[in-house]
């Protein structure tokens, strides 16, 4: 019986939040396709000790490849190792996270294996012997149902969409030998300069606080950062294109058709008008909150809850109330 492989990510030796989501998506598929869920984790020496949660999420086997050259993502190394292991096993499907890393990794694995890839999907089913995926297009203005006519079916899943499940698997850890030669990898990673601290990427954050031109000045982002911090570790910062173009915020935070498409459980649009290109990027969020002084702003057409008013009055109060609530609980 063919199994399902969930390729999971770590950073600095700790599993990423998306890891359990990929395993959850694999558990969902395996329910229909049969077979076991295997997780695959690449990392530096000792990474095998960081597999907590994979078994609890439903992985029967956790394959671990440990090597110094795999401590951080490598654009030549990771695809080579993953493609080999995915090719050696008898897998009906191979799942990735459509994270920043996964979007670099999965297409390379697919090309190496000569397989098509359905990327950034928000739904998965196994029917009539084939995997069918829901794939958003036009930045979420529409979505397609696509059937993958290849085995294994390669898929990357959108962060925050597949909810982790509690389904104990055996989680047998198997160490897989690294047979690749890192000296043959042409790309050299020269440096990494951390900027965002521990703030999660906007595309992966469970809660997103986004600011637009209504924030008036980049210095006012301190107010958004306070709200973000009050919402807890899983919260990230987003921005409209207007403020990215103005140089107030980095492009990595831009939400929308020419930025990132996000699907957090909770999205705050602060001083954002709600242009069609912005809405495309966040309309699949669970709950949308808008604060805008213009009652006719289009953002209110998609927001679940809105406050009409001056954000400079609303924001501090909101931060305070949420802080009190979270400290109390």
């Amino acid at each position, binding site marked *: 019986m063919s199994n399902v492989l969930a390729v999971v990510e770590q950073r600095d030796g700790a599993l990423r939040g998306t890891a359990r989501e990929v395993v959850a998506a694999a558990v969902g598929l395996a329910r229909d396709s049969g077979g076991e869920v295997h997780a695959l984790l690449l990392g530096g020496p000792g990474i095998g000790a960081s597999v907590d949660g994979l078994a609890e999420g439903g992985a029967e086997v956790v394959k671990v490849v440990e090597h110094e050259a795999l401590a951080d993502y490598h654009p*030549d190394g990771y*695809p080579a190792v993953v493609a080999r292991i995915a090719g050696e096993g008898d897998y009906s499907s191979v799942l990735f996270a459509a994270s*920043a*890393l996964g*979007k*670099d990794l*999965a*297409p*390379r694995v*697919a*090309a190496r294996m000569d*397989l098509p*890839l*359905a*990327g950034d999907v928000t739904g998965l089913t196994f029917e009539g012997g084939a995997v*069918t995926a829901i794939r958003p297009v*036009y930045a979420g*203005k*529409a979505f*397609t*149902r*696509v*059937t*993958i*006519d*290849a085995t294994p079916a390669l898929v990357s899943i959108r962060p925050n969409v597949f909810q982790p499940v509690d389904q104990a698997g055996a989680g047998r850890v198997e160490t897989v030998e690294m047979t690749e030669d890192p000296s043959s990898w042409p*790309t*050299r990673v*020269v440096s*990494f300069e951390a*900027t*965002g*601290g521990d703030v999660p990427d906007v595309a992966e954050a469970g809660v997103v606080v986004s600011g637009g031109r209504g924030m008036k000045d980049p210095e006012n982002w301190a107010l958004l950062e306070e709200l973000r911090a009050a919402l807890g570790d899983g919260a990230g910062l987003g921005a409209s294109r207007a403020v990215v173009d103005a140089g107030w915020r980095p*492009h*990595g935070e*831009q939400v929308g058709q*020419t930025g990132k*498409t996000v699907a957090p*459980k*909770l999205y705050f649009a602060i001083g954002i008008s709600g242009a*069609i290109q912005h809405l495309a990027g966040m*309309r699949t969020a*669970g*709950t*949308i*909150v808008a604060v805008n002084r213009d*009652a006719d702003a289009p953002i209110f*057409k*998609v927001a*679940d*809850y*809105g406050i*009409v*008013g*001056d954000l400079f*009055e609303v924001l501090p109060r*909101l931060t305070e*109330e*949420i802080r009190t609530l*979270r400290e109390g609980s």
Partner: protein
Amino acid sequence: MNIFVCVKRVPDTETRIRVGADGQSIDPDGVKFVVSPYDEFAIEAALRLKEAAGEGEVTALTLGDAQAQDALRSALAMGADRAVLLEGEVTPDGLATARALAAEIEAADAPLVLLGVKAADDDQQQVGPMLAILLGRPCATAVSSFELNGDKVTCRREVEGGTEVVELPLPAVVTITKGEFEPRYASLKGIMAAKRKPLETKPAQTADSRLRVESMELPPERTGGKIVGEGADAVPELVRLLREEANAL
């Protein structure tokens, strides 16, 4: 140095998407098509390289039907020297697209291939790195700026939590995101000149798509919710709703 830039013709981002009669693709009626915005960054990057070097040739390459020529003409108007249309079907299978592009690039002597990080229609972010694997070249994705140093290209990538610098030996494939390469507008002179620049059309060597679109649908309309109130006084009620009704806090 000769540079290939792969471009795609996509609906303008302003477009309100309607599903076509086939139930599988958009209704193109009344839709304005443009060069995918990320591909414009790639064209700009190629032109700047050529201008700095004072030599070389920029080739714009696309896969598509006859109408895809529009995208090539736009690239030529910006300043590309020549263009190639690989006539064939564009499918959702990025590997099939990458294969068609690879067949053309393989035969040419182009140490650098640039693409937008993703196309603004499918958002798949896969053709660039797939093309690199097919060509057996290294690839950096989501690059905001880069420079050539002899036979190497040094790329800055905006990644999660920071900026990464990677160095690739040429020949290489680089996919461009927003950053240093704000695209120029085509001048009137450029638009006129584009009409006389060589645009070659040849049949694409496409493989069958192994991703089959069953249907296309619009997402359920989000019905606007409620205005909780005005000003800071509405905050406690908002927080209560978020916790008790939406279960979001």
